[in-house]
């Protein structure tokens, strides 16, 4: 089994112009993954499947991950001109100051593919595809035409995360019903409020029930807590 770096080199040799990045995995499992660019993703995947040395003929797992917009706080040393009174004389002094800067790293949706080889019995090779953002650029290329195994799993990722797989033959909702609007596995999904009743003290559920009742009382809604 080649290491990730070797695979990356092999890909770059075989598919000219392929954008491949290694996403390191700091955990003990050490399964580093390859981030593919959208344009060449299908060719790269085809190379991985058909290359006799790698022979990754078996796509085990396709899944989505939702990375929210992150507010990153970092301390930056900034040089600036400060007017100071030193010894009674006003001077312009250059000074290095620590400044906290905040910026929002845009979130993205990610599709993760775990590849194994049944012929050579090795693996896994982890591929990642990222969308531009979480709202309007949610397209990634589909790998279903290479591995049938992705058919239902990509549909599931589409259903639950809203990643649109370009080139998927039958991209419909799979777990939720047709006509459902939300993507419930996203981290910012808000559930429908149907926690009217909870007989047992069940961690957050009781809180939600109480919140529901408070809200219903505020809206002056009858029946929410009145017993009828």
């Amino acid at each position, binding site marked *: 089994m080649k290491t990730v770096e070797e695979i990356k080199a092999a890909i770059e040799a075989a598919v000219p112009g392929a954008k491949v990045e290694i996403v390191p995995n700091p955990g003990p499992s050490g399964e580093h993954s390859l981030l593919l660019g959208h344009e060449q993703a299908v060719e790269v995947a085809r190379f991985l499947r058909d290359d006799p040395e790698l022979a990754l003929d078996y796509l085990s797992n396709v899944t989505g991950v939702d990375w929210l917009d992150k507010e990153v706080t970092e301390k930056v040393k900034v040089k600036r001109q400060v007017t100071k009174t030193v010894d009674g004389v006003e001077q312009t002094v250059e000074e290095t100051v620590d400044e906290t800067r905040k910026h929002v790293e845009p979130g993205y949706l990610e599709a993760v593919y775990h590849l194994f080889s049944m012929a050579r019995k090795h693996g896994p090779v982890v591929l990642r595809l990222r969308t531009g953002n979480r709202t309007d650029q949610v397209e990634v290329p589909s790998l279903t035409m290479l591995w049938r195994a992705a058919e239902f799993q990509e549909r599931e990722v589409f259903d639950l995360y809203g990643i649109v797989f370009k080139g998927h033959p039958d991209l419909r909702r799979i777990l939720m019903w047709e006509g459902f609007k939300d993507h419930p596995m996203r981290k910012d999904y808000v559930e*429908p409020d149907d926690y009217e009743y909870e007989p047992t003290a069940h961690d957050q559920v009781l809180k939600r029930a109480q919140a529901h009742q408070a809200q219903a009382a505020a809206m002056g809604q009858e029946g929410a807590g009145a017993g009828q």
Partner: protein
Amino acid sequence: MAIDQELKIEMGKQGVFVTTIQELYNWGRRSSVWPMQFGLACCAIEMIATTMARYDLARFGAEVFRPSPRQADLMIVAGTVTKKMAPQVVRLYNQMAEPKYVIAMGACAISGGPFKQGYNVLKGIDRYMPVDVHIPGCPPRPEALIQAFMTLQKKIDSHHLTGEGRPRYLDPDAPGEFKVPEPGEHDLEPASNQGVWPVPVVIR
């Protein structure tokens, strides 16, 4: 007749004549409750296990699992009812012929159980249709299902054909069918059938 009219009326008021038919009627229905062949999730496996060799629900005359709702008397809601499945469950209940009974088997069917926090899980089937017996447990053991079955038999035995406490299907004013919820854009519509399920009070 030796009985004078007044006594007859008096006994009729107390239900003497009615009672004998009623007993036969109740006995017949309670001794031959045919469940519908209908399973949803984990509890369905325990339901199957109940009908199998060791527990043998057949002893009560209830092994005739009918696949068609028209021919079944008892619906065992065995497992998690999801919001996608709830309309079908209610429709199946509407398709059953009266008299019909419902056993909510397991925590999920009662209240959503361990999956209560799920966005697609219905928090209790009794939001949409009347339930006769609830069995707690996740999943309930087969013995619990047999216990529920016997509880249902006792309940059928106590039914009166007339008067105040008569069951729903003998009451011409009671609804025969329940509204089938429609899957909406975010949730089922309506979220519960008013009239079937009075919203209870949260005890803080």
